[in-house]
């Protein structure tokens, strides 16, 4: 297997038309923390990928999980990371995807443009290591907040337009639940600013 990418926590290997994502031991972390964490994230990621896949959300087809080495085998997506070829036009599509994912009861937990792949025809969401099965407004708001921050820091010039496009599309797709989510979003931002005051 050939190493394809080092993500934010895992190594991703190429294996024909599949990839294998392996969470290796982190030497800085005590084994009592590290081992259960890697195992539960792998298990959670695989389960959530299956749920998303069967709900028609564009994610790589999950194929096999091995708990012993914390690995997941999945469909290889022919594309590139969205952050390296970012465009605001795709934000409408992303808003719809995230709304659909949230409606399926999944919150991603690490929604950045590095965890979205761009293929010739569409976006594909990957990296569900920090995901949760939840339909709570607050968790959904956290997802949006993280994306907003990622846009702001990584795509500064396009950030405002990109975020507006995303939010328009997301709120349109998620429907009346947006009100509650938006209240939490405002709350998270307020709390953050307050912290800067010590």
């Amino acid at each position, binding site marked *: 297997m050939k190493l394809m990418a080092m993500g934010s*926590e895992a190594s991703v290997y190429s294996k024909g038309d599949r990839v294998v994502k392996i969470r290796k031991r982190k030497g*800085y972390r*005590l084994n009592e923390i590290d081992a259960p964490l890697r195992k539960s994230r792998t298990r959670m990621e695989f389960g959530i990928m299956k749920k998303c896949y069967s709900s028609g959300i564009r994610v790589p087809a999950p194929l096999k999980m091995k708990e012993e080495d914390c690995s997941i085998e999945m469909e290889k997506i022919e594309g590139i990371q969205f952050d390296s070829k970012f465009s605001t036009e795709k934000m409408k599509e992303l808003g719809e995807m995230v709304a659909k994912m949230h409606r399926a009861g999944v919150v991603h937990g690490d929604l950045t443009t590095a965890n979205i792949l761009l293929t010739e025809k569409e976006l594909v969401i990957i990296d569900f290591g920090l995901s949760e099965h939840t339909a709570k407004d607050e968790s959904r708001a956290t997802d949006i907040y993280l994306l907003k921050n990622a846009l702001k820091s990584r795509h500064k010039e396009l950030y405002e337009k990109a975020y507006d496009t995303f939010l328009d599309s997301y709120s349109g797709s998620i429907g009346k639940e947006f009100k509650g989510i938006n209240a939490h979003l405002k709350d998270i931002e307020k709390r953050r600013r307050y912290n800067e005051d010590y």
Partner: protein
Amino acid sequence: MYVLGIESTAHTFGVGIVKDGEVIANERDTLKPAQGGIIPREAAAHHYRLAPMLLKAAIDKAGIKMKDIDVVGFSQGPGLIPALKVGYQVAHLISEKYGAKVVGVNHCIAHLEIARKYTGLEDPVMLYVSGGNTQVITYQGGRYLVFGETQDIGVGNLIDKIGRKMGMPFPAGPKIENMARSGRKYIKLPYSIKGMDVSFTGMETFVSRIIGREKSEDVSFSLQETIFAMLIEASERAMAYCRKDSLVITGGVAANSRLNDMGEVMCRERGAVSKRIPLEYAGDNGAMIAYTAYLMKDYRQRDLTIKPRYRTDTVEIKYR
């Protein structure tokens, strides 16, 4: 060219002097309240009391006279209002009396600049951990951007709060570090990472409940192992996301050697570098303000008031 810098965002009052960008004096004093955290007014009183003495000590150490100062920098924020006001007043006073130009410095950026200077790392990701601040910052597109941060309380505050509950004096960091060395048992604690952010309030509640029921050594050990792992994971995520290959840990909590060790192991495993900065420049200090004011000496700033909620990413970096 002589630049004097004043730090007074929290409980430390510091005066530093740089000559052509090299530190030649760094004097400071930190208020250590008998119990509890920082009371803003007490910090300010402490700063007023010690300012004249620390100024003189720095000037003497540098072997210069007040009138030799060309630029006077001060911490504009973020920080506690009463404490910030002291630095503001002293800087403006020096400017009026001796004709030095005033430069307002962002406290977080000063930490980063002094860290770059003393590690020689060009473009690191900085994990900035102190009482009130817990941020992962790096340079991108002409600014210092916050990639990850605490969603609630600062890690230093968390440590101090827990320390107080275990009956330790403020600041509790060193005592907890010591106790942790003899901890043997890992008590499972909540590990809370949200993207590149961390969250500590769940930890505070959880640990408060086990204090007294578990040995302090084991609590300290488990606490350190968990919160530092979270911070190093957040740093690693930012490094991966921003494609940066070096790390520097700074702020008061950077005095903890376990945290530094973890940062080094993380970097080694991903083929990156991590360097330590001298302790003198890790905690709040005047030299970092002087040095950053030196870098900013040509800035024309319209707003030279204090900025208690000064955001790192609002400062345009023109000298890099």
